[in-house]
């Protein structure tokens, strides 16, 4: 049962094009499908916003400061995760671990601040049932937060399980993490600054 993987290991990871490994292509296909998920959600929100009333007014009740801090945290964690890859590629295990740890910490901080935000909003009476803006707000940030959590898990596994950590895997984890960052780059203005 393990033989198939061994065969691939013997031959080196299969390549789609010279220098382009199958694993990376697979992750980009996965990101393409994820783009369709978030794209569908964002397109729906955008269109409903353009056709409806009260979006701007409802959005004014969000706490921009906390979300702005979260934006900066996520941007910085994108930096640290790509630095983790660069460190792994040059064989610097200590730097890789540090960068991965910072990335994990950033992700956890993001989730913690998001939880604070949600609590504040719910306490103020703004639930998913409070109107179409709030429905979209909770749906989009909730789905995004689930993706952040998944990314935290992946990065934490690579941080802790040194045997599993190859430069290729760090790169692929980073690709996913950057995608999650890019989604937030669009969610933030759509929800908080419009």
């Amino acid at each position: 049962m393990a033989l198939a993987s061994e065969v691939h290991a013997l031959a080196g990871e299969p390549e789609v094009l010279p220098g382009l490994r199958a694993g990376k292509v697979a992750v980009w296909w996965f990101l393409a499908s994820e783009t369709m998920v978030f794209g569908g959600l964002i397109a729906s929100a955008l269109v409903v916003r353009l056709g409806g009333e009260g979006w701007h007014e409802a959005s004014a009740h969000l706490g921009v400061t906390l979300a702005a801090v979260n934006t900066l945290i996520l941007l910085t964690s994108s930096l640290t995760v790509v630095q983790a890859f660069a460190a792994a590629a040059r064989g610097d295990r200590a730097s890789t671990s540090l960068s991965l740890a910072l990335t994990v910490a950033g992700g956890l901080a993001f989730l913690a601040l998001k939880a604070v935000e949600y609590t504040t909003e719910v306490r103020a009476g703004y639930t998913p049932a409070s109107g179409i803006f709030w429905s979209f707000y909770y749906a989009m940030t909730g789905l995004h937060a689930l993706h952040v959590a998944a990314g935290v898990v992946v990065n934490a596994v690579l941080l802790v399980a040194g045997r599993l950590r190859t430069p290729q895997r760090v790169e692929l984890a980073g690709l996913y993490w950057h995608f999650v960052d890019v989604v937030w780059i669009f969610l933030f203005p759509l929800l908080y600054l419009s």
Partner: protein
Amino acid sequence: MTGSRAPNYVAIWVWLVALALASLAAGLLPGGRTVTVAVVFAAATVKALLVALNYMHLRFEPRLVHALALVPLLVVAVLAVALVPDLVLRR
């Protein structure tokens, strides 16, 4: 990504932070909400491109990977445009 071909990740980060702060300040611009929204989304697009091209290394990948990144966006655009008549124009 090794050696001289790698982007300067920290420099990119500086630009990302600058654009984020500029977006926050866009509300202070004259010209009303439309201008603010346009500036904010333009900044978001630039940030996304910076991340995609430099952190995700699209700048260095073959065209196949560019296609994988680009085609879904075009398909989403088709969906968004088709939603406009029902969800925007008839409200």
